[in-house]
């Protein structure tokens, strides 16, 4: 692993402007991903994972916008690039796949053509050459009989096959970073595991870094070397995947880990209920002052209700944002 980060996010703030007022949907978001690294972003629905991903690829649209911060890709700041330059990066050097394999493919276009279009668009290939490369790309995601499958329309493929096609499209141009936003949420558990395995292997072979986004801490920790936990628009903890299970430092992370079923535990055997974090995620317009987790936190004290905790370095490695972290 080379030292220079592939992507570096520093103090990113994402504003939500509904016309009358502006609130920060995410703030103080910082992380870096090295070449070929796997990095996870975890948090409950609505905490700002997807908008962070959109910010990285320059696709925040009103009412959302980047309010502050720096995004550096391959050493160059990209947050102020022109629309055309950002578009050139997308799909070519930074690719992204979504959770909805059912709707992410154009229903009236054969899948081979949709893969081939990437080579035409970003690599300037002829359609002839691009169609040949599309067969190869389909073979690389282990779709059987790819030379016949390229002519299939999306509705002729199963959900798992479609997600393979999406991966083939995303990896077609050999991107440096693959952002996978809940890539398997819509799939069966068994298919899920296959798809994740395939994605991980392909990216490892090609040295493609992965930013994996999910609400599922277990899944992300399985795939990724490092994990960042997001809560209400802020990253509250960032750790190595093993550490985050062994000794989670932030009370929210602790709650997440406690709510996961563990192999052999009483909960996994169905004898006791999983512990859930009491309370609900605050709405974006009513984030509490200080630490945004304080209404739900059992360790909360007065300082938590007034002062935003800074990010601390942990001795064991990793970062945490809590006044009273373990």
């Amino acid at each position, binding site marked *: 692993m080379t030292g220079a980060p592939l992507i570096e996010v520093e103090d990113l703030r994402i504003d939500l402007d509904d016309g009358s007022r502006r609130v920060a949907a995410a703030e103080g978001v910082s992380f870096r991903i090295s070449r070929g690294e796997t990095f996870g972003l975890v948090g409950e629905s609505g905490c700002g994972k997807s908008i962070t991903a959109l910010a990285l690829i320059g*696709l925040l649209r009103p009412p959302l916008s980047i309010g502050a911060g720096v995004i550096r890709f391959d050493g160059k700041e990209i947050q102020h690039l022109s629309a055309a330059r950002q578009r050139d990066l997308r*799909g070519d050097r930074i690719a992204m796949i979504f959770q909805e394999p059912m709707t*992410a493919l154009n229903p*009236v276009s054969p899948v081979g053509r949709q893969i081939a279009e990437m080579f035409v*668009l970003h690599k300037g290939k002829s359609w002839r050459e691009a169609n040949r490369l599309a067969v190869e790309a389909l073979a690389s995601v282990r779709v059987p009989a790819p030379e016949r499958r390229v002519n299939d329309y999306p509705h002729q493929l199963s959900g798992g096959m479609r997600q393979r096609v*999406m991966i083939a499209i995303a990896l077609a141009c050999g991107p440096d970073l693959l952002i996978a936003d809940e890539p398997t949420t819509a799939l069966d558990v068994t298919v899920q595991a296959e798809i994740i395995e395939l994605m991980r292997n392909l990216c490892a072979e090609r040295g493609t870094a992965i930013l994996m986004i999910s609400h599922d801490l277990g899944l992300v920790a399985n795939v990724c070397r490092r994990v960042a936990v997001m809560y209400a628009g802020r990253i509250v903890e960032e750790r190595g995947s093993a550490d985050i299970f062994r000794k989670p430092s932030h009370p929210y992370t602790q709650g997440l880990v406690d709510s996961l079923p563990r192999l052999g535990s009483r909960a996994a055997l169905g004898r006791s209920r999983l512990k859930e974090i009491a309370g609900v995620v605050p709405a974006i317009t009513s984030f509490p002052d200080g630490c945004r987790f304080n209404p739900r936190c059992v360790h909360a004290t007065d300082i938590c209700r007034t002062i935003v905790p800074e990010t601390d370095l942990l001795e064991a490695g990793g970062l945490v944002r809590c006044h009273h972290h373990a």
Partner: protein
Amino acid sequence: MKLRANLVIGGALFALAIAVGLLAPWLAHTDPVLDANLMNAEEPPSWTWWFGTDDQGRDIYSRVVYGARVSLTVGIVSQLINSVIGVALGLSAGYWGGWWDDVVNALTNLMLAIPSLIFALAIMAVLGPGLTSLLIALGLTNWSFTCRIARASALSLRNQGYVQAATVLGYGDFRIMITQLLPNMLGPIVVIGTLGMGSAVLSEAALSFLGLGVRPPFPSWGSMLSDARDQITTAPWLSVFPGLAIFLTVLGLNLLGDGLRDILDPQSRSRRT
């Protein structure tokens, strides 16, 4: 499954009209313009003169056959112009929104407010009669329905997963409109286009009837009707046969459009059954 009679009959009538237009030199018995012979003036329909002859002794059958060329050219070409204008404006307005959408909407409302035939008349008055003027006048005045449909489709399609996926994959706006939006709205556009062709054929007849269409002596169904006006009681076949040709062509196009809507638009299909 019910036999789609409208699709079959409509398609057959339209195909017949196209075939007649294309094969006119072989189907016609005489030259539609040159073979005038006052010796045979105003002959009623017979084995020799299938549709009869006019006051200059020209064979009506041959003139109707050649007239298909003008009517269909006007119908197809002017509707193509309309479709291209309507799709370009509606698609871009729906996809981009903003001030461009406002401009297109205002323009569409203006077009809808003025009957297109009146608008076409005004354009013809400026351009003068003739085939080219007809194509321009009818091609510029009947795109508002296509535009409305294209805009509405683009509005709903732009939120589809595959359109957003294309954005994420680095597609530019035009590539998205051409590859992601257009093919997915083609069904209703084709239906509207087919119906529009029918009304263009009618408009051609109307404008030619008013003397603004194709210049005589070359035959068009509308101008033949116009010429036959004075002899409607003495030689009714002069108006009956071109009228029938217009009727069958427009009927065919309407049935075809209807039938296409049945197969292309699942919503109307379920409503009908």
